């Protein structure tokens, strides 16, 4: 008897371990989450935007000016630039993806930006779309008429812009920008390093303007107008405007992220408020728990002893699924949870197929042990074929989908594979291990199902 129960015990212990992992690594369940080992902190559930709140933006990239063989390269460059800009928001886990044009995806090159927790969609799109324009201007030659305007109150103001003329030096020739703090004043400054062309241009400008002002314009407004003391041949410049450290940091980020390689336009945008997402998550979890309990109740009433085994097998299935969601990781959305729920149905189906077969074999007069093993091998073909067809569907959906459909297909697909494991390994081992109850009348009653006696 011990020998028979042993494999079942191992399964239970392993499943317990997996359940422990799911529990420990989930801040919403584990009250001591903050103090637990850093290993567990690495694996929280990844909630999609519809559950956690946030913004989902779809951009279309205009690649008509790009040669065909360079489209994919410039899309990757575009993604990198946008990713750098997005990272400036300080959003946790932003996702920036390129959706390539193909027969499957349709004709347009698209860029998808997911910003969890960002509900101010306008600020987000503004920051993504913004290209920092850095210009260097020199003093206008003496004799340029000064434009003075006098307003209603009699205050005169000088038109500053007219006093400077454009040079060829712009942010295009920037190699990188770095945030620094002035050694004496502790004020944040932005130090610039030009590339080769920029270095040459900057040397020329500084050489020609010793003792004069060079104005640094950002997005059309002067931010700093230092006076040149000497020629600067090494291509280094420092902007010391009246920055707050945050402003300086953002400026550095924007300068470094550079200009977009291809123009983009916003196709669609979606924002989900955090409370709405929270509600959806709670409702989803509640529905899953109620659904699970209903199934367990039904299985036990209808299938008796095997029903209890199916319930255990189903619990193992759900535990493995949750652990996989954390480990892979799968981003959970409302549609993803729906896929998971369908997968629960498929997992139950495998058990039901097996039990119905066992019942038939019992009614044909076999012993419980024989009926179990025959029932298994007979049910296997049906389980295999129906699961393959579900897998085909899940694969095609995943291959196709918009992000919503993909989430659904992924949880469904994983669910089908794990359900095969839970039916074949877990249910089988448990059925074998309870054969110690013998072949008596009660044992037979427990193995039958439904209304049969």
């Amino acid at each position, binding site marked *: 008897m011990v020998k028979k129960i042993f494999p079942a015990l191992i399964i239970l212990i392993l499943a317990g371990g997996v359940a422990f992992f799911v529990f420990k690594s989930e801040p919403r369940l584990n009250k001591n989450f903050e103090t637990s080992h850093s290993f567990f902190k690495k694996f929280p559930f990844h909630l999609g935007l519809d559950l956690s709140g946030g913004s989902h933006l779809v951009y279309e990239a205009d690649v008509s000016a790009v040669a065909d063989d360079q489209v994919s390269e410039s899309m990757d460059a575009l993604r990198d630039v946008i990713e750098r800009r997005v990272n400036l928001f300080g959003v946790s886990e932003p996702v920036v993806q390129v959706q390539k044009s193909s027969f499957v995806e349709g004709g347009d090159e698209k860029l998808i930006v997911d910003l969890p927790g960002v509900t101010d969609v306008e600020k987000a799109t503004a920051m993504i779309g913004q290209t920092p324009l850095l210009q260097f201007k020199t003093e206008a030659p003496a004799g340029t008429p000064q434009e003075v305007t006098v307003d209603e109150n009699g205050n005169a103001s000088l038109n500053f812009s007219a006093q400077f003329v454009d040079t060829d030096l712009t942010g295009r020739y920037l190699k990188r920008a770095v945030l620094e703090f002035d050694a004496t004043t502790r004020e944040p400054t932005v130090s610039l390093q030009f590339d080769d062309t920029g270095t040459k241009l900057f040397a020329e400008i500084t050489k020609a303007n010793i003792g004069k002002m060079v104005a640094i314009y950002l997005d059309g407004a002067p931010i700093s107008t230092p006076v040149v003391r000497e020629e600067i041949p090494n291509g280094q410049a420092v902007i010391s405007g009246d920055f707050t450290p945050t402003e300086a940091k953002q400026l550095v980020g924007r300068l470094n992220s550079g200009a977009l390689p291809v123009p983009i336009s916003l196709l669609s945008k979606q924002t989900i408020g955090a409370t709405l997402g929270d509600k959806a*998550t709670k409702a989803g979890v509640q529905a899953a728990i109620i659904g699970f309990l209903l199934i367990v109740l039904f299985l036990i009433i209808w299938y008796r002893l095997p029903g209890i085994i199916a319930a255990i097998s189903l619990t193992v299935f759900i535990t493995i699924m949750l652990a996989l969601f954390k480990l892979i990781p799968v981003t959970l959305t409302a549609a993803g949870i729906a896929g998971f729920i369908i997968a629960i*149905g498929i997992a139950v189906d495998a058990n039901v197929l097996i039990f119905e077969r066992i019942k038939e074999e019992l009614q044909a007069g076999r012993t419980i042990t024989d009926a179990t093993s025959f029932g298994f091998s007979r049910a296997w073909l049906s389980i295999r074929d129906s699961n393959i067809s579900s897998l085909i569907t899940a694969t095609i959906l995943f291959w196709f989908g918009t992000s919503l459909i993909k989430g659904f297909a992924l949880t469904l697909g994983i669910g089908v594979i794990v359900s095969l494991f839970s039916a074949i390994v877990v249910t089988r081992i448990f059925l074998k291990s309870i054969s110690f109850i013998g072949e008596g009348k009660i044992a037979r009653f427990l193995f039958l199902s439904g209304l049969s006696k």
Partner: protein
Amino acid sequence: MFIVKYKKIFLSLSIVLVVLSITSFFVFGVKTGIDFKGGAITEVSYTDTRPDQETLSKNLESLNLGSILIQPTGENNYIIKSRDLSEAEHSLLLETLSFNGQESLTEANFNSIGPSVGRELTRKAIVAVILVSLAIILFIAFAFRKVSRPVSSWKYGFIAIVTLLHDVIITVGVFIVLSNFYGLELDTLFVVAILTILGLSVSDTIVIFDRIRENLRNSGGINKINFGEIVGHSLEQSFARSIATSFSTILVLLALFLFGPVTTKYFALMLTAGMFIGTYSSIFLASPLLVLVEEKQNKK
């Protein structure tokens, strides 16, 4: 078995349902949501009591955003449906909704989709249905290749597809009728529901075909047996399983419908309908059709 014996009655019933569904499509038409036709949905939640709908509607008219639909929802919320909005229009809308800042509100949900996205979704959905169907015909023809007599394995695949179309058409019909009464709109989740029903319907049909395949194999001399009897016998055997499975799946789906998130409410309902019809059709349509095909073959 009675299902095989009275197959013509069940087949007629299915035909009637399919015809009714197609008719409802033409009579009621399909209301597509912004996922397909483009547009914007803005949901705002007022901190205090929400303002009067008529005042709001008058204020919004002055924005010139075309036809705008205002629906109250929940305690203090409004859902505003309009054409797709640019950044400027969106902020203008929010400003108007808050009476230029007099009423404090939070934006619970904002979704704006350009029309081209919708066209793409439609195309993808159609291609997906076709691809899934083809892949499944191929798979069934392959899986049943050893039982090409008395009915060729291609026909099993073909019948599975007929059953599948039957399920999808009737589910869409149910949706159209529901949408007419409850104002539902066709969205991406609905497409997911249809594609799922596709998968579930086929796997349900396959389980029964599997049983027929097994019984055919065990019956020995193929020419001497009565195909109809074998199908009937197979149905009897897989009856309980089909019902137990769909019953337990429907249990979870109903839980999802009753207690789940608002977004997947009607998705769950559609799946429940699809699951039910899928189980019905694999018992009452697929197998009788198989017998019918065999009988037609024999007459030739």
